[in-house]
């Protein structure tokens, strides 16, 4: 079916509607959700369903247009007069302007479709999963806000709008991770409150840095609009003979810290494993479509602003995080803990890819990862839901027979994340490895070399821990007496859709899907998103000096390494957990010191506690002491002084003013009591007085001359 081209007059409106629909549903859920059947979950499902339909429809436009060749697929709503100026100044008094608009390009269209689709599936899943939660109307409202924030971030053509949505998302994630903190019956109340606060505060470090970076960019260029920033930075670097000015280097570092915070990279990764205290569908949202993806998305959007040193740092941080988190994931026993650490590791892949210059590969991995990680989390939720809230892998087993559909979906997603050929994750991980090998070949060392060693090892670990999870949960004999059962259809439908996407998401549009070594054939994503279509110009810092023959050789070796890593992990996991049927021991009783350390994530949390939390607490205590003794002392002293003044004033009042009044009264009373002596009430006495008076009057009359 031939799709029409993107029509800016109507389609920007459609995009805006699609982005705001989940918010409308959210507000309805918050306000009247309590009285609606199912807490209003159907509203959010409907809204995100419509949004997903719009997203996929417009994504079809994008694919069609980019497949046809010619102009890259990039649309700015501002160029069509559709923008909103937050600093709108009057025509007679021109001032600074800061217009917000929509940027809809290949990456944005793919991400928009992915976010709306996953949000729709998560909503559908939540209807079944949250059926017994008394606060589900709040939950559905919050998740709608979460979705709208992410969609706004994806569509933003402006770093400030992006930042606003970024913050909104942090707030929504805080609400959702702490969902059970409001449930007085939940045994994990305290933990989820703490996890929500930890997530919020840890990402806050990155947010503050990002805001600083925005301030620096605005003060230098007077704009935060992405395409203008890309252009002016390119011009400035060109004038400066290819060297980034120092302030831009630090701005890039600050942006990178923002990304590290949001995408849970080392050393700000601690919040993500704790964030699984929220309901499982929320974890799927956070890990797949929103929140952590936002960090990588920002990295893709701000790539031309980043100096080579920043990119090298990103590459090293990403590669280190990938291998670090993969080893931790291999030692976890909680089903969601494995997946959470796996997300950190996969995000490390993406950040490393962008840092090495492979923006397209990194963004591609972000999209495919969204499919299989959402599928894995929702499957884990289905397992937990079906086996009476069991989180511990060492007490699962044999679920293959009782939950066949969940098993099938999880197996497909596991193969996708492990990088089994022909599955979605294989293509994207292969692309990242290729970028790493190319960089290593160009640079002869440096971050490229580090990444090309760390990433394949991390990939092998990925394959190992994912198959370990699969084997422990679904194979062997059941380890508890509890009879697991398959979940409700609202839980299974999203699983099946996502599992299908995990299989085909990587190569649905590749011309020859079966020919692994077909180097020239681009996966659909690379057709849609190239550096030129992303930033308008081939950006700085791309890998140069690779001829096609060398590139083909590197591609083949990346492919071989990738398949070998996936196979190695699979074989080891099979040998240990199926052949020998080993059950993992609890983390504190692991035999090997290294695996014990890995199980407790190398004591990073304790380290963070000792290095950051404890000093901050003692500083706070010091401040509190100063406050209590110095400030309170001054205030209390002032109070005492005022009290003394009051006492003096009262004494003056009492003694002088009251004294004068009382004295006057006493004088009057004295006169009264003296006069009262005459007033005896005895008539004879009165008669005597009258007589004396009469005699006196007579005497005066007679004696006066």
């Amino acid at each position, binding site marked *: 079916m031939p799709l029409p081209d993107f029509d800016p007059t109507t389609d920007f409106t459609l995009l805006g509607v699609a982005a705001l629909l989940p918010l409308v549903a959210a507000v309805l859920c918050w306000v009247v959700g309590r009285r609606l059947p199912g807490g209003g979950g159907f509203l959010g499902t409907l809204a995100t369903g419509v949004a997903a339909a719009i997203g996929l429809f417009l994504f079809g436009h994008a694919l069609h247009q980019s497949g046809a060749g010619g102009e890259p697929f990039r649309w700015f709503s501002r160029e069509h007069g559709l923008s909103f100026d937050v600093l709108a100044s009057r025509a007679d008094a021109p001032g600074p302007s800061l217009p917000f608009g929509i940027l809809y390009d290949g990456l944005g269209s793919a991400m928009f479709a992915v976010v709306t689709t996953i949000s729709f599936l998560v909503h559908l899943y939540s209807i079944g999963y949250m059926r017994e939660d008394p606060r589900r109307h709040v939950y559905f409202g919050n998740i709608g806000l979460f979705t709208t924030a992410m969609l706004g971030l994806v569509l933003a053509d402006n770093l400030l709008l992006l930042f606003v949505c970024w913050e909104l998302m942090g707030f929504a994630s805080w609400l959702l991770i702490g969902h059970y903190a409001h449930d007085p019956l939940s045994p994990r109340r305290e933990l989820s409150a703490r996890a929500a606060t930890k997530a919020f505060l840890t990402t806050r470090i990155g947010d503050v840095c990002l805001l600083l970076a925005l301030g620096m960019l605005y003060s230098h260029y007077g704009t935060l609009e992405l395409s203008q920033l890309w252009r002016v930075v390119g011009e400035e670097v060109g004038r400066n003979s290819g060297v980034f000015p120092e302030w831009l280097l630090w701005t890039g570092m600050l942006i990178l810290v923002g990304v590290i915070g949001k995408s849970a990279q080392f050393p700000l990764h601690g919040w993500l494993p704790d964030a699984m205290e929220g309901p499982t569908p929320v974890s799927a949202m956070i890990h797949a479509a929103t929140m952590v993806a936002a960090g990588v998305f920002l990295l893709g959007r701000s790539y031309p602003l980043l100096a080579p040193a920043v990119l090298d740092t990103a590459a090293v941080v990403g590669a280190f995080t990938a291998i670090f988190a993969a080893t931790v994931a291999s030692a976890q026993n909680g089903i969601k803990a494995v997946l959470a650490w796996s997300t950190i590791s996969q995000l490390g892949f993406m950040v490393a890819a962008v840092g090495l210059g492979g923006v397209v590969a990194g963004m591609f991995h972000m999209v495919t990862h969204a499919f299989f990680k959402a599928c894995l989390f929702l499957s884990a939720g289905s397992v937990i839901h079906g086996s009476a809230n069991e989180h511990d892998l060492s007490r699962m087993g044999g679920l293959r027979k009782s939950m066949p559909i969940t098993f099938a979906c999880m197996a497909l997603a596991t193969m996708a994340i492990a990088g089994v050929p022909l599955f979605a994750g294989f293509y994207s991980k292969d692309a990242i490895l290729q970028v790493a090998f190319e960089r290593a070949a160009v640079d002869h060392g440096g971050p490229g070399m580090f990444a090309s060693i760390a990433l394949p090892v991390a990939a092998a670990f990925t394959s190992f821990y994912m198959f370990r999870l699969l084997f422990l949960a679904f194979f062997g004999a059941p380890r508890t007496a509890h009879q697991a059962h398959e979940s409700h259809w609202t839980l299974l439908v999203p699983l099946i859709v996502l599992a299908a996407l995990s299989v085909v998401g990587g190569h649905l549009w590749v011309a020859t899907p079966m020919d692994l070594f077909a180097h020239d054939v681009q996966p659909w994503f690379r057709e849609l998103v190239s550096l030129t279509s992303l930033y308008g110009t081939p950006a700085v810092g791309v890998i140069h000096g690779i001829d096609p023959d060398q590139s083909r050789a590197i591609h083949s070796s990346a492919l071989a390494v990738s398949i070998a890593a996936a196979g190695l992990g699979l074989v080891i996991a099979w040998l240990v957990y199926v052949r020998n049927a080993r059950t993992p021991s609890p983390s504190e009783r692991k035999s090997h010191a290294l695996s014990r350390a890995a199980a407790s994530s190398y004591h990073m949390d304790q380290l963070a506690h000792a290095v950051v939390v404890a000093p901050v607490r003692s500083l706070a205590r010091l401040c509190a002491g100063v406050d209590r003794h110095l400030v309170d002392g001054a205030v209390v002293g002032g109070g005492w002084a005022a009290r003394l003044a009051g006492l003096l004033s009262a004494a003056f009042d009492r003694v002088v003013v009251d004294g004068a009044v009382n004295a006057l009264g006493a004088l009057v009373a004295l006169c009264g009591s003296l006069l*009262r002596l005459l*007033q*005896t*009430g005895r*008539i*004879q006495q009165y*008669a*005597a007085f009258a*007589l004396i008076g009469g005699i006196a009057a007579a005497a005066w009359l007679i004696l006066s001359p």
Partner: protein
Amino acid sequence: MGLGAYLCVSAALLVIGIALMLARRNILYVLMGLELILNAANINFVAFARFSASPLDGRMFAIFVIILAAAEAAVALAIILHVVQLFHSVKPSAVDRLRE
């Protein structure tokens, strides 16, 4: 007998009346003292009328005073009756409630 003798009797009556009025512990005697004072005045009126050119004026005053005394005695006795009923006493010193 000259005017001086009359005046002496009148002055004596006046003094006796005043003494009764001020000193007696019985209110009836006080009233009687009052009557004596009035009669002392009557004697003066009559005496001055006897020794003056127009004798009728003084007698007229005496008759007025007698009528006045009769009326006064009636009112005073009624008051005294009430006083006795209220205070169960004929002492004038008992009736001092207005002091307060």
